[in-house]
Every structure is written in structure tokens, then in C-alpha cells.
């Protein structure tokens, strides 16, 4: 496809709608995804996505809008995962796994009962922004705005709860309510992202941009904003790539969006490794002067190393070494080890 044809395609009404939906999804999913990754629940989005398959199937069976049945079922599933996790009867990952299987099996079973084949589910599993209707764009925009407003507005509270729930509880924050809010917002983002990346790949848009952004960021806020940029670029870019390839083959936008996000991760990863290496090198071993190391007595030591002893202190893993006559001394019981 030539550039002119591509520009013409991108100018079409349905494509404009699709681009808007993709952009909003690309911004909302990583925003809530950052909190989920912070809580080390990276697969939560995947679990909710599988549950939402059942919701879509219920929509197909009853003739109701699959988007709304998916929203309802995904929220119920997310709350259920959160409750199972909080009650602690099973591990968080086991709770997720149970819903994974149940959701997917239920979805395929109900779709069969509805008389549709797996093909009817295909659109929801791998995304199809191109068939999105104007009303659905408004739903998507509305839901994405709700997710963005709540995550950015409650960022300090959500950060405190996600990073240390016990501290948050003593500080008087309603930890359970905030955790449920994150689960519900995740469910809403999943259903928002359903039309663009599809349910099976939805977790990628919540996790991969965050993983990309945290290669370069040092703070939580910059990770979150960076993830939103990566998500937005990947969603819009992936859609354009899918449109461009559509002349030759049928390409669902979901896979191209996810692959693009992964490419961005692969590109930033070496940079992140390099930056972390640089940071380590900027905290060098203290300069020792030019004198050669003298003889070293391990058992006779005139003083105890500490803050006031005047020897340069070098943090070393879980302890502190002291530079002494060209050696690094680490306290070990009665004597000093050479490090």
C-alpha cells in the first residue's frame, strides 16, 4: 500500500473512530496497570480478560450488548479474585488460575449454546477496532476517562495502598475499598481494551508499557506517565501498522499493538541496563591515595570501625565495608574480613 492510500485510509470515518478508541485505551490500560504491577499482580489483567470472555458469550446468548455484559461479568470476576486473594484461603495466583480456566471454558461453552461458532468470539479475543460503531466509541471514551480520572486523582492514596497495605491501614486509609477500586478499574480497562487489543492480549497493554517505562524511570509518577506515553504510541502505531498491512492480509489490530509495545520494551531494555550500570559506576570506590597497601593485621585492630573512625565507609550489600590501608574491612564477629 502506498503512503497516499494509507493516508486516505486513515482519513476515513471508521478509521478515525478506531484511532480515538485505540489512543484512549492505550492511555487508560497502562495507568491502572502501573498499580497492578506495583502490587505484583501482573497477571490480574489476564485473569479478568478470561472472565470477560464469559461476559461476551452471555451477551451473544441473550442478545444484549456484549460490551456491557462483559463489563458486568469482568467487574464481578475482579471483585471475586480480590476477595479470594484477601481472605487468603488460596494464593493470589491460584485464585487467578481458577478464574482463568472457568472464564474461558464458560465463554466457549455459552457461545456454543448461543449457536455461534468460535468465529463470533474471534472479534473480542483479538480485537477489531475497524468494526467499532460510533456509540461504542463514546462508551470507550467515557470508560477510559473514568479510569484515567480516578487513577490520576487518587494516585497518592492508591500508591500508598499498593506499596504497603499495612502502613496504609494504620494511616487510616480504607485498604480494602482501594484494592476493590483497583480491581474494578482493571476490569473496566479490560473491557475498554477488548475492542482494540482483544481479551486474550489485554494484559499486555497493562503490563508491557509499564515494564518499558520502568527501564528508564526512577520514580513511580514518571513510570506511570511514561507507561501512558508508551501505551498511547503503541496503540495508535499498532493500529496504523495493522491498517497498512490490511491490503495484503487480514491482520487484527491486537497482535500488532502488542508486538509494537514489545518492540519498544526490547529497545529500551539495553538502555535501562546501561543506565543502571552507569548509576553504579557513579558511586565509585573512594579514592585511596597513592600509597601502596601496607602489611595487614587481621587480629590486632586499634579501634572499632564506625561512623567516627575516619575510614571511608562503603556500603556493600547488606553491610558496610571500611577502607583501611588499601583494604576493605567488613566486620565479622571479632575480626575483619577482606572484601
Amino acid at each position, binding site marked *: 500500500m502506498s503512503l497516499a492510500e494509507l493516508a486516505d485510509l486513515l482519513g476515513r470515518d471508521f478509521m478515525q473512530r478506531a484511532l480515538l478508541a485505540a489512543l484512549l485505551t492505550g492511555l487508560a490500560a497502562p495507568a491502572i496497570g502501573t498499580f497492578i504491577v506495583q502490587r*505484583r499482580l501482573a497477571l490480574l489483567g489476564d485473569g479478568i480478560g478470561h472472565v470477560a470472555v464469559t461476559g461476551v458469550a452471555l451477551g451473544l446468548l441473550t442478545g444484549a450488548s456484549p460490551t456491557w455484559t462483559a463489563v458486568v461479568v469482568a467487574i464481578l470476576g475482579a471483585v471475586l479474585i480480590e476477595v479470594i486473594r484477601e481472605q487468603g484461603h488460596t494464593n493470589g495466583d491460584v485464585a487467578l488460575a481458577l478464574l482463568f480456566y472457568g472464564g474461558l471454558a464458560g465463554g466457549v461453552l455459552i457461545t456454543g449454546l448461543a449457536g455461534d461458532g468460535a468465529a463470533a468470539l474471534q472479534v473480542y479475543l483479538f480485537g477489531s477496532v475497524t468494526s467499532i460503531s460510533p456509540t461504542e466509541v463514546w462508551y470507550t471514551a467515557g470508560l477510559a476517562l473514568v479510569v484515567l480520572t480516578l487513577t490520576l486523582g487518587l494516585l497518592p492514596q492508591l500508591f500508598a495502598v499498593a506499596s504497603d497495605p499495612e502502613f496504609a491501614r*494504620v494511616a487510616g486509609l480504607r485498604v480494602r475499598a482501594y484494592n476493590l477500586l483497583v480491581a474494578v478499574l482493571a476490569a473496566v480497562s479490560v473491557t475498554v481494551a477488548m475492542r482494540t487489543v482483544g481479551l486474550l492480549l489485554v494484559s499486555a497493554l497493562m503490563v508491557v508499557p509499564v515494564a518499558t517505562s520502568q527501564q528508564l524511570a526512577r520514580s513511580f509518577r514518571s513510570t506511570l506517565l511514561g507507561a501512558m506515553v508508551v501505551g498511547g504510541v503503541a496503540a495508535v502505531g499498532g493500529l496504523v501498522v495493522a491498517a497498512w498491512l490490511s491490503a495484503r492480509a487480514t491482520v487484527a489490530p491486537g497482535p500488532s499493538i502488542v508486538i509494537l509495545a514489545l518492540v519498544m520494551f526490547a529497545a529500551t531494555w539495553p538502555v535501562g541496563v546501561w543506565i543502571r550500570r552507569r548509576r553504579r559506576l557513579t558511586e565509585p570506590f573512594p579514592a585511596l591515595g597513592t600509597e601502596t597497601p601496607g602489611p595487614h593485621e587481621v587480629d590486632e585492630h586499634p579501634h572499632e570501625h564506625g*561512623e567516627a573512625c575516619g575510614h571511608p565507609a562503603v556500603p556493600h550489600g547488606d553491610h558496610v565495608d571500611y577502607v583501611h590501608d588499601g583494604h576493605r574491612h567488613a566486620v565479622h564477629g571479632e575480626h575483619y574480613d577482606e572484601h
Partner: protein
Amino acid sequence: MLNPAGTPVVEARDVTVALGGRPVLRGNDLVVRQGEFVALMGANGSGKSTLVRALTGLRPLTQGSVLLFGTPLHDFKERRRLGFVPQRGTAAGGVPASVREVVASGRLTRRPLLRPAGKADRAAVDDALEVVGLTEMAGDGVSTLSGGQQQRVLIARALAGEPELFFLDEPTAGVDLPNQRALAEALRTLSDRGATVVLVAHELGPLEPLVDRAVVMRDGRIAYDGPPLAHEDVHGHHHPFAGPHDHAPHVGSPFDTMSLDPREDLR
């Protein structure tokens, strides 16, 4: 300072906690008065951490009551007066966070919902970072810090809310000596400002000169409450009563008295 006439800030009566049906705390009474620096000590599994968790409301009581500043725990709404440093090796989560962000989250007790941080909030965070000596590291990622520095970050987080009563759960566990000294310095500043401190410690180390009251736990009960004890008194092998000993562990049923221990007969 020991403050026998001060207002009680913590009043625990008959505090009993069972975990999974097994009693971990058995009928403990503890009153902490304003300005006191109390160290909760005892062997592993003696219930000292559980007692602090019960006092902060993290562990529901099976029996008994806790009053904070004269208000029952479940009605206690003035969380800004409370600072808590959990027992934890690390302050890092799955996403990078800067030292400043973690410390600022301690300010939430004084910030209304959806209101951006004001000048007073920023000043409190700066002050907290200065007290623990981490001002230059404010922009660094928490995960790049050493364990002792991360513990100081957690203390700064509790400080940022400018509380009057601090609970610290093993702040010095696994922390090297220079960091323990920095910690002790921060706690001294706090104590001099008039805060009440209750801390759990296995060993006091550089904190020793700060402590003015030691509470020693054993088998879920407060076994000693008074001036600080030497290490040997807490961990040493001693026999509470004269006469022959068989050196076998004697296990009483829950809430039962140990008939071998004559002190029980005095109650």
C-alpha cells in the same frame, strides 16, 4: 523520659490475641504515657510484634480493649496522631518509586482527598528526610538503597505525618551498625520533640541510651516492665526460683497457669 504522671496515650487492658486458635498474647495490660520511650523486648515468638500489631489495630483482639489517646481503637479516627514503621526488609515494590514519593505517602493522613500537596506537606517531607539523613538521596529509587537506608526511608515516611505516637516493629533488625546509629539519632530527635515511642527490638544496640522503659515479653505475657535491662537479664539463662530443675519444657494449656512457676501463685 519516664513520665509516671503523664497522660496515658496507650492503655491496653487484658489484651489477648489468638492466631489460628493458638493464643499468642494472653491477658496483657500495658499503659504508655506521653513522652515515654518504651522498648518491647523478648525472644522470637514471644509475642512482642503481635502486641504492637494489636495496639495499631492490625491484629484483631480476641479479648480485652485498647485505648489510644483515650479513644477505643475501633472508634479512633485521628490517625494523623499515629506513626507506624512496619517490620519489613524492603520499601520497594514492583514498580520503581523514589525515596521522596515513599516518604510523601506518610503525609496522606493530613492531606484531604484529591487535594495536591501544599507547602506545609512539602516542608514536612523535607524535614523528615533531613531527620533520617537522606536529603541527598530524595530522588533516588528506593530499591537502589541498602537495607538500612530503606529502613530509614520507612521511618521518614512515618515522620512525615508529624505523629505524636510512634510504633516501630524491629527497626534495627538486619541493619548494620552505622545505619543503626543513624536510626538512633533520628529517634533521639523525635523523642526530644516530645513524641511517644513504642519500639519492638530483639537487641537494643545503639538505641540503648534512648530507652527509658523496657517491657519484656515471654510466651505471650509481659514478664517484666520497668527500667531497661542488660542483655544478660533478658537472654541469659536464669532460674526464676530455687530448688532442683529438670530442664524439660513444661507446656500449660492455653490461659492455664504454669504450676511450676511460683510467681503465678502471687496473682
